[in-house]
């Protein structure tokens, strides 16, 4: 019975986090099959430690970063650290432009801050739509919402984030409001 309950709860977590974890992996690894293999490993470990995990999303992303590090270390001769994973593609582009770099840090802080969102589901919705470019319908598939519910909720999050960005002095945010 305990196993059945664990599996039921795991299934719910998998359903909720699968798209963001896999999207994150695809964006870092670039190859769908490799991303799925890593995703599988991450979720197997997640299943095995399920009862002890409090912050499920954080745990999954930490595990995903760890697995990506292993992936690159296996593939390449040069070793990389887990901390480098987030800067794999973008940081270099903006390294020379201080203003951009500062704004980027501010924006990132806001969209990574759980306090910017009403609940975790709202954060997942934002990530799927704004960060990973999912259509409202596709995002709704994973979040148990209709296309219209997703659109409505996304619009309200968008306004809130834009207001927070404006408060922090991000110039372009004014245009969004």
């Amino acid at each position, binding site marked *: 019975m305990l*196993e*059945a309950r664990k*599996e*039921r709860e*795991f*299934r719910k977590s*998998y*359903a909720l986090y*699968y*798209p963001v974890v*896999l*999207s*994150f992996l*695809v*964006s870092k690894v670039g190859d*769908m099959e490799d991303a*799925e293999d890593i*995703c*599988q490993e991450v*979720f*197997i470990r997640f*299943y*095995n430690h399920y009862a002890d995990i409090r912050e499920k999303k954080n745990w999954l992303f930490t595990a995903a970063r760890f697995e990506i590090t292993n992936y690159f270390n296996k593939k390449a001769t040069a070793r990389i650290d887990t901390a480098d994973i987030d800067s794999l*593609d*973008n*940081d270099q582009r*903006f390294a020379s432009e201080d203003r*951009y770099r500062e*704004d*980027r840090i501010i*924006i*990132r802080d806001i*969209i990574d801050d759980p306090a910017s969102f009403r609940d975790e589901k709202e954060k997942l919705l934002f990530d799927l*739509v*704004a*960060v*990973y*470019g*999912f*259509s*409202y*319908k*596709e995002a*709704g*598939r*994973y979040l*148990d*919402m*209709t296309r219209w*519910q997703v*659109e409505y909720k996304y619009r309200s999050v*968008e306004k809130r*984030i*834009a207001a927070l*960005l404006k408060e922090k002095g*991000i110039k*372009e*945010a004014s*245009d*969004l409001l």
Partner: protein
Amino acid sequence: MNKNEVRNISQLLGRYGLTAPVSAEMQRRMADDYAPLYRRIVKKAPGAALFGSVIAALFFLVKKMAVPVPLVKAAAAVVLSASVGAGVYLAMSPGLHAPVPAPGAIIRPFASSSLDEKTAVELSRGLARSLDRRFGPGYSSLATGPGIAGAGLAVFGTAEAMGNGMIVIVKVIDPETSRLLCILEERFTSADERDRAFERMAARFPSPAKK
């Protein structure tokens, strides 16, 4: 992405390199691999035994159709509440009980001195099937014990071998008054003829309403 969906924040994040768009093709593939990947994980995870494999299959089927699970739950809840509500309403409303079906015909297995019991019973069933086709499923039944209590009509018959065929004679009686309503007779030599003979009998059969 729908052309009408304006993603301003998304564009802003993109300008700062904070987006990682997943192509529409990859999104489709993710949706396709959603359930198979789950099965692979649960199969490989030690201790997991796919307890809820049927539930999981349904769960991911619903997800694949992009129907929100709460919507499915809500629909199930509406159907359940409607059934329970209707049941309670009918039970509490004296004049609104479901109509009681009219009593049909009870057929006693045909008697025979020349045929074995199995054949005689099979012939009785043949007549019952023809009556059901004419008056509706469940209209007639074969008596399994003594008595004909509750029947609208009582049917007694005999079946005998005759040359290379058979003859069936049936008496239809009103159990309330013991009045003989009619006597029907048919002869046949093949299975096809037998079925047609029972259809003719059923056509001449008095319905309980008219008796």
